[in-house]
């Protein structure tokens, strides 16, 4: 195993691969700094460009991109009070007040260092988990992997919004889209509507771009203004922030653990990880109840350590079980399939060098990202203030060209348009989109596992102990997901009633 890790670092330390990693980092930093875009859009755009790369280059650029969006997303959060990505919402609570007090530099110093330590911690846990996971994964057969696939989709479906039924349907739509094309077992053409283009299935690239990139840019254009328009302040005290991080090392470490844990659970991830860490810091830190929310640097360190550590956690189920915990991990899984890699036991045995390359990429990208952020904060802040009018045509053109890269067929462009409309309607009508991508990526794999399970074990595959445990887990996740959604809706209704009551009371008094 140590040999594979050494071989992986040798593989990565080739100038062209390091260059790809660095390009990914720069793209990730720019996307993280632009509120409303983020790593997912970037990853979708990047996917077709990895076709001609070897697997080390492909994962260097992709992991470079996703590992640092959570580092640069601090910039708009602190300076403008607008989250760069959904993972930095909690950073605003103390980061923005710090900027107002003239301590933006201190907030950045702390956030970057906490992000770096969190990211390295995530990579370390991922590396350490491999020898532990290997015997477990090798003990799994097709029935277990089939059930794990369903578990991943159901968890993401019920947790990726307050509408679990919509989430489940979205996951099923993804699975159905994944079934289009020639059935590998029987040769039957499924839902191809006489189109030769669809014989090989709907390519992932136009679907991912249509579902995520176009709806985001459409919504940003609808909003119409520049993304962030508060003037930036002078940056001072970066070193004080770095010292703060080391002074609060135990908090950073604990939040790193929170980040890895939340990242590893399918369906949680980016948008909750910062809140979990922030909540943990409030509960455990001395005097937090009085100072948090007013510009306490610990309120910046906690979410920033956690949101960078989550990528290491999220890669664990993706690599080991082929169960991506989020949409960006689903795209990474898509890239693995494009590169001819099979997640699961192969990634922990014959392709172990690729797995370790991913871990090294994650660690090095975090170092690159932190250094670049320290040097480029002012430039990245200007990117965050770009006029949306300039961004829209550029993104549209890149998305159309990237989409055409999938199979270089007109069908790619029609798929892009269809899924753009579908994605936009889903967004407007509050349908969660990540389960659809997850369903699409996992469809072929899951169907194959189901086919093998039935042919080999008949109906008895359902009686295998791990299968039954996973069935229970699916039932529990569905139950808690639905219960949680109902609770949140009731809470929302009571809040609305309270606001209405207060407004009518105010009107009566007037």
């Amino acid at each position, binding site marked *: 195993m140590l040999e594979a890790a050494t071989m992986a670092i040798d593989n990565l330390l080739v100038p062209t691969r390091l260059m790809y990693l660095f390009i990914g980092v720069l793209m990730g930093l720019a996307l993280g700094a632009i509120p409303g875009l983020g790593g997912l859009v970037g990853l979708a755009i990047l996917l077709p460009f990895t076709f001609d790369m070897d697997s080390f280059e492909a994962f260097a650029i992709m992991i470079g991109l996703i590992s640092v969006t959570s580092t640069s997303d601090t910039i708009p959060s602190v300076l403008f009070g607008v989250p760069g990505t959904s993972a930095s919402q909690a950073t605003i609570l103390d980061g923005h007040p710090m900027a107002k007090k003239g301590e933006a530099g201190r907030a950045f110093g702390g956030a970057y260092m906490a992000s770096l330590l969190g990211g390295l911690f995530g990579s370390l846990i991922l590396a350490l988990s491999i020898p532990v996971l290997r015997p477990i994964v090798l003990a799994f057969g097709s029935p277990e992997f089939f059930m794990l696939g369903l578990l991943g989709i159901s968890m993401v479906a019920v*947790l990726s919004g307050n509408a679990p039924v919509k989430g489940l349907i979205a996951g099923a739509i993804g699975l159905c889209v994944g079934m289009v094309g020639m059935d590998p077992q029987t040769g039957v053409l499924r839902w191809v509507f006489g189109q030769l283009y669809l014989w090989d299935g709907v390519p992932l690239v136009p679907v991912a771009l249509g579902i995520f990139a176009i709806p985001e840019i459409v919504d940003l254009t609808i909003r119409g203004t520049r993304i962030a328009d508060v003037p930036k302040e002078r940056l001072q005290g970066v070193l004080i922030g770095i010292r703060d991080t080391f002074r609060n090392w135990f908090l950073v470490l604990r939040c790193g653990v929170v980040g890895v844990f939340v990242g590893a659970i399918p369906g949680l991830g980016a948008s909750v990880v910062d809140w979990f860490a922030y909540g943990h810091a409030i509960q455990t830190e001395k005097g937090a109840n009085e100072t948090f929310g007013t510009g306490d640097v610990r309120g910046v360190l906690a979410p920033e350590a956690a949101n960078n550590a989550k990528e290491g956690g999220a890669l664990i189920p993706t690599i080991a079980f082929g169960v991506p915990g989020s949409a960006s991990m689903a795209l990474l899984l898509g890239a693995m399939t494009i590169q001819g890699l099979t997640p699961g036991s192969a990634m922990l045995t014959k392709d172990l060098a690729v797995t370790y390359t991913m871990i090294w990429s994650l660690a090095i990208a975090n170092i690159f990202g932190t250094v670049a952020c320290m040097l480029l904060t002012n430039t990245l802040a200007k990117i965050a203030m770009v006029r949306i009018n300039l961004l829209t045509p550029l993104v549209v053109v890149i998305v159309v060209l990237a989409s055409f890269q999938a199979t270089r067929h007109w069908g790619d462009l029609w798929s892009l348009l269809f899924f753009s409309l579908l994605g936009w309607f889903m967004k407007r009508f509050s349908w969660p989109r990540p389960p659809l991508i997850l369903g699409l990526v996992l469809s072929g794999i899951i169907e194959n596992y189901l*086919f093998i399970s039935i042919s080999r074990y008949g109906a008895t595959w359902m009686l295998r102990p791990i299968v039954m445990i996973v069935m229970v887990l699916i039932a529990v996740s569905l139950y808690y997901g639905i219960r949680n959604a109902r609770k949140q809706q009731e809470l929302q209704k009571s809040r609305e009633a309270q606001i209405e009551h207060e407004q009518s009371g105010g009107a009566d008094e007037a």
Partner: protein
Amino acid sequence: MKLRANPGALFTVFVLLLMIGLVATAKQWQYQARLFPWTIGIPTMVLCFLQLGLDMFRGKDADEDVAGMMDLPVDRSVPVAVVVQRAINIFAWILGLYLSIWIIGFILSVPIFLLLYLGIQAGETWKVAVTYMVVMMVFMIGVFEMVLHIPWPPGLINGPQEFILGLVERYLSSLVPI
């Protein structure tokens, strides 16, 4: 419970009809080919009916916004009529780009789209629009033609695209030492 008007229900009906269509067409396939489509499709139809019921009786979508978990929030501050009008506008621009690609090919359509969008729709100065167009043209030829070697699909009127690609090819071959 009373019935409420909800445009989101129309989307659910669309998904339901799609599912019914998918399950119905799978009927003619042999057992192995339709096993997975039915395993997924039939329960999904039931879920669609359930969602339709929720849409009809519970109303507003904002109650269950996906924001805050794994998706980006929807900005609901813009009036729906404006949202619809602007969305149609953007999708019309994208369709216009497609039409142009079909007629004159990618190479010319992309810079023309950038120039017109920035000049007309975005209200940028023509100086900005032209600079942007030139930079994008260089980027497109650099990345997609020189690095990725994309075989550009011919347009209905293919002469101009072929002329530009010919110029690029001649330029590139002049760079290679004999």
